[in-house]
């Protein structure tokens, strides 16, 4: 009993836990509402689909959270995703083996992350501008690789590839979901338990203090953009496997979905704050809304409006919870 209590207090003491718990309550309410509206919401089939819908948002959310915690932003996520999808699909339709295609795609995507990191840290460009540039460049590359056409089906050679990344199951769970879970565990560990993770928070909290304490700001910034590019790369591959072809506009405005998932989960766009558990809840809320509203027969337009409202409200709630308890700003 004693130890149990201690355990709970320890969990509550984790920074950012408050917001995560609040939105978790919101998530549960949403699930109940949709469950009542439509009993098939909780069917096995739909749950599997729902989780597969959440997985890509969670993945890019992890990448964006990393970047946001350092106080920066990555707008190139959607384009890198598109690049990843188009490059891998194009290579496979040209008869290159899936593994080689994935490796080449990986290198291309990481190059964008590397460039982002150095533009922001070494060249000290504002992250919004720097990644706005690479976002446009990335989309251009996605368009050019197959001569401004979507690719044909990746065909028989891509069957195994599709099975691994899309419809295959291991232990009865879709591989896509497993990939997201594994990636989350690894990056959550890095962020919360390693030196690199600590430096990520430090830079977002006070970059000068971090620098003066001997933290490599350039190195750490490049790392978070590489993580973000890696996550986008993975989702691009998954998108390619899902559709069985490459589409040039895949991933459009995903960078904003990633911001939404992070922010709903309590990651601050000002840096220094947030945990990846929040990103899971944020991505889940996103997925549940999409899936549930679709089930309820709401058109895309309504879904967009609802999600937009949720993003604003959740951040507003956070602001009220944090500063509203004392009406006046405390001033020494």
């Amino acid at each position, binding site marked *: 009993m004693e130890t149990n209590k201690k355990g709970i207090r320890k969990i509550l003491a984790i920074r950012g836990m408050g917001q995560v718990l609040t939105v978790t309550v919101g998530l549960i309410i949403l699930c109940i509402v949709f469950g009542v509206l439509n009993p098939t919401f909780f069917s096995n089939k739909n749950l599997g689909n729902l989780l597969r819908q959440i997985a890509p948002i969670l993945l890019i959310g992890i990448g964006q959270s990393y970047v946001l915690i350092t106080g920066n932003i990555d707008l190139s996520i959607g384009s890198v995703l598109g690049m990843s999808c188009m490059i891998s699909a194009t290579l496979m339709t040209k008869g290159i083996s899936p593994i080689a295609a994935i490796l080449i795609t990986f290198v291309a995507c990481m190059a964008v992350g590397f460039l982002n990191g150095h533009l922001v840290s070494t060249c000290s460009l504002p992250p919004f501008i720097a990644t706005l540039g690479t976002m446009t460049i990335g989309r251009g590359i996605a368009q050019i690789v197959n001569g401004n056409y979507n690719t044909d089906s990746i065909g028989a050679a891509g069957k195994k590839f599709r099975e691994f990344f899309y419809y295959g199951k291991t232990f009865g769970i879709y591989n896509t979901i497993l990939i997201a879970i594994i990636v989350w565990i690894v990056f959550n560990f890095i962020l919360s338990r390693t030196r690199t*993770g*600590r430096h990520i928070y430090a830079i977002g909290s006070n970059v000068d203090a971090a620098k003066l*304490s001997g933290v490599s700001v350039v190195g750490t910034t490049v790392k978070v953009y590489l993580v973000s590019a890696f996550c986008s790369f993975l989702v691009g591959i998954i998108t390619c496997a899902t559709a069985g072809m490459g589409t040039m506009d895949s991933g459009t405005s995903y960078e904003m979905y990633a911001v939404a998932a992070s922010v709903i989960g309590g990651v601050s766009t000002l840096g220094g704050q947030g945990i990846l558990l929040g990103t899971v809840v944020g991505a889940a809320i996103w997925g549940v809304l999409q899936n549930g509203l679709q089930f309820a027969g709401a058109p895309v337009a309504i879904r967009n409006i609802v999600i937009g409202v949720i993003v604003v409200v959740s951040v507003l709630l956070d602001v009220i919870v944090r500063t509203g308890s004392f009406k*006046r700003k405390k001033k020494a």
Partner: protein
Amino acid sequence: MEEYIVQMKNISKEFPGVKALDDVQLNLKKGEVLAFLGENGAGKSTLMKILSGIYQKDTGEIIVDGQVIEHMNPAKARELGIAIIHQELNMCSHLTVAENIFLGREKTKSGVLSEKEMRKEAKKVLNRLKIDIDPDTLVGDLAVSKQQMVEIGKALSVNARILIMDEPTSALTSAEIDELFRIINQLKSEGCGIIYISHRLEELKHITDRVIVLRDGKYIDTKEFEGLSMDEVVSLMVGREIKNKFPRVECQKGDKILEIKNLNAGKMVRNINLELYKGEIVGIAGLMGAGRTETTRAIFGVDPKDSGEIILEGQPVTIHKPEDAIRAGIVLAPEDRKKDGLCTKLSVGDNIALPNLDIICNKAGVINSKKQEQMVEKAVKDLQIKLANDNVDAGSLSGGNQQKIVVGKWLARDSKVVIFDEPTRGIDVAAKVEIYNLMNALKKNGIGVLFVSSEMPEVMGISDRIIIMCDGRITGELNTSEATQEQILKYATKFEDKSGENKGESENGN
């Protein structure tokens, strides 16, 4: 030779267009406190940044422990045991005390952070300094003074032997300063060399062994502190004697200009009543956290009021937001100039024009650039701000000049009451006198001046009347002619007795 742990010889440093340091020297002994003095812009920070490896010297020699250090960089400086405690605290407010202390050199076991071990060591360092802080507290939740202690703890945890402190007391209360000095003396006895930069000359006597003075980037002198008078120190710094540290003008007390009745705003502003007359400066004294800043903010309409009346020249005025106050003629020069007082990325001219756009814009809201130019030109001239031109960023100026702009932007319009909140914090003696002169000029022109300050000599030297606050209430009022420091302190510590419920006459003065 052996007795010096740091020797800096013939150091010069040039920035584009400015010679920041010209053939400067500095020696530091083991176990001493060397007070490093000079006006703003004298080159103190530059020299310290060279010593800690943030800047590179152009010419000269740095010798640490008898060894010539060719290329100093921050990592090397740390290795040599040189630590700098910056004026603007450099802590990550989102991280805990322990995490901050170990930032940049975290302990890990096969890649995983060893939180427990770091927490234990952090505790050890804090205990050594006899500081009572839980290493798990978020630094952002700590008071400024405690943050500073953590920063000292951080420096010591890397075995720093050469400690540079840049204005460490500027945000501390007197009790906290005593605590800091206890720590400094302890470090001294442990053999650390401490370079102590401060503008508060009064406090030097508690810790200082020697003084070094720079002026305009040039080395002036190093002297034993004992036997040195304050006037000598000041004349070394300024290069001339300042005859009157607190200039005073006498003028006739005029009509009542401002009256505050039963002002309440949250916990820190409780039932404030005060009156202000033309031709007088009213000082508001008190300890840190007495509610003085909050009171000024409530009057100016930054923070919402719960109740109360503001009567300006006999007419009640309603102030819900700063705009209302400015329009009525009450203006505020806030405490934290970088945060609240200036748009540091805008030019000096734009800063001065900002609150006066109603004057210099035409009806359609288009700025009349000629009017702005005239206004800025006049302000710069009146305030005697030394500027290359008024297009330079406000943030690039020295503290004293920044403060003048914070004040100056309000003088361009006809205000009736000017409230100054800690106008002389962190600026040097000469700049202080200029600010006092400005306040005196306002007083002479029949403008009411409210003046919040934590420095007692200054309050007593400048104001005509002193109001003392404690715990959000006004606890006393004194005429300057009869005020003593003891009296002010007595009122400033007149806390309500919160122990026990005997609400009656429990003014035992805790």
